[in-house]
């Protein structure tokens, strides 16, 4: 086993509400979990798409927001010390000869476990790509959708597109090291913190950055090296802006992503499972929450929680086949309460 390999009981792909609650159910059965998510925080759709919107159908909570539900789940699973690996896409899942699974991320990390739980929801959240001709050609080098290594922007002609917090934060952070910096947005209203907007406007006034009202029309360059971006201004004229680094910020969208390549039986892009264990066509690999399909499936958080509980029983039997599992209530079992740290 290589040094960087992480071994655990259960690897959960996706830290949305359902992946989070699975930690609880598995934890009650003494199973330790590692979670991997492409987002930089837990909560999946609840945190990314509707953190402030109310949910009315979580049993026992007449109303709770997406973010509150996420925060509560994080609190509820804390006693089980789950380990989180954010900003990572799971690219490969492979069943080895010994029956365990090898999971590999886009950063090259390797995880090993006897059980894999896919709680990938609507798919992985990925940046929206502007529909500009040949943009793929520059991706990874001249076109980036997030800043991973700030040094790659030093002494570059940087062009940032967007009007939210990510766009403005990077305008402020990259301006001091960039050779030139241009911000492009379709209107002069920004959905960002007022202080960032004011700082940005001050930089424009001081002539340190350029702001153009408009949208990307086309790109110029060779290989993966961008040389200029043509911007269609609001007035309709085209401006040619010398650019070596382009950062478009249009938010995220869900794409099924690598899940489709793991050799699982799919049903219209959803993973087919049974309704006793929520196991996929590969033994030891389970799928719960929005990503799975079975007759009668409802894409509700409530259903995902139920699936997590039943899946956990089956996972336990794979990991500790000889251990007898006794059905217990958290209300009355001192054993369970000890695990939760309340006794």
């Amino acid at each position, binding site marked *: 086993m290589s040094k960087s390999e992480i071994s655990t009981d259960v690897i959960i792909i996706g830290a949305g509400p359902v992946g989070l609650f699975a930690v609880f159910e598995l934890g009650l059965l003494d199973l330790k979990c590692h979670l991997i998510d492409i987002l930089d925080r837990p909560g999946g759709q609840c945190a990314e798409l509707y953190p402030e919107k109310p949910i009315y159908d979580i049993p026992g909570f007449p109303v709770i927001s997406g973010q509150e539900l996420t925060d509560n789940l994080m609190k509820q699973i804390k006693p089980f010390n789950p380990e989180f690996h954010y900003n990572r896409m799971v690219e490969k899942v492979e069943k080895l000869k010994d029956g365990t699974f090898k999971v590999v991320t886009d950063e090259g990390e390797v995880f090993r476990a006897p059980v894999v739980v896919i709680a990938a929801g609507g798919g992985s959240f990925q940046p*929206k790509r502007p*529909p500009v001709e040949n943009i793929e050609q520059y991706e990874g080098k001249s076109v980036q959708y997030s800043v991973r290594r700030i040094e790659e922007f030093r002494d570059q002609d940087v062009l940032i597109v*967007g009007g939210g917090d990510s766009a403005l934060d990077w305008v402020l952070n990259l301006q001091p090291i960039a050779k030139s910096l241009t911000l492009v947005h379709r209107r002069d*209203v920004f959905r960002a913190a007022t202080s960032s907007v004011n700082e940005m406007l001050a930089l424009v006034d001081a002539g340190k950055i350029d702001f153009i009202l408009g949208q*990307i029309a086309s790109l110029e360059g060779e290989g993966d090296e961008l040389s200029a971006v043509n911007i269609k201004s609001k007035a309709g004229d085209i401006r040619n802006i010398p650019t070596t680094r382009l950062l478009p910020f249009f938010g995220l*969208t869900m794409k099924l992503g690598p899940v489709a390549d793991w050799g699982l039986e799919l049903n219209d892009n959803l993973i087919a499972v049974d309704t006793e264990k929520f196991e996929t066509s590969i033994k030891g690999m389970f799928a719960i929450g929005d990503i799975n399909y079975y007759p009668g499936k409802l894409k509700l958080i409530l259903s995902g929680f139920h699936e997590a509980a039943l899946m956990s029983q089956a996972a336990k039997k794979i990991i500790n086949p000889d251990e007898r599992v006794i059905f217990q209530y958290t209300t009355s079992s001192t054993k369970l309460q000890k695990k939760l740290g309340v006794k």
Partner: protein
Amino acid sequence: MKIFVTDYDGKVHELEALEGWRVMEVIRDWGQDIKAECGGACACATCEVYVDEDWVSKLIPASKEEENMLDLVPNVEANSRLSCQILMSEELDGLKVTLAPNSKT
């Protein structure tokens, strides 16, 4: 009540609509391809349509929330709207829209 929807290949579909339904829901319910990832919560900007010139002025202007979401469309046109924010009513009987490329699943 009807709406006319032009799909990604330029084909026009006449769809029966119901009062109070969102245009996005009408499009989705009839099986046309529309991502509408957030299900109408004005949180994803993947239900964009181009409104026929004759109809633009007949719609209730976009709310601040909708304008904010339109910022997440990489190439907004003057007649771009989020179809989940247009509610069907008698006045919109016959509305013509075209699915924007960003709404494709």
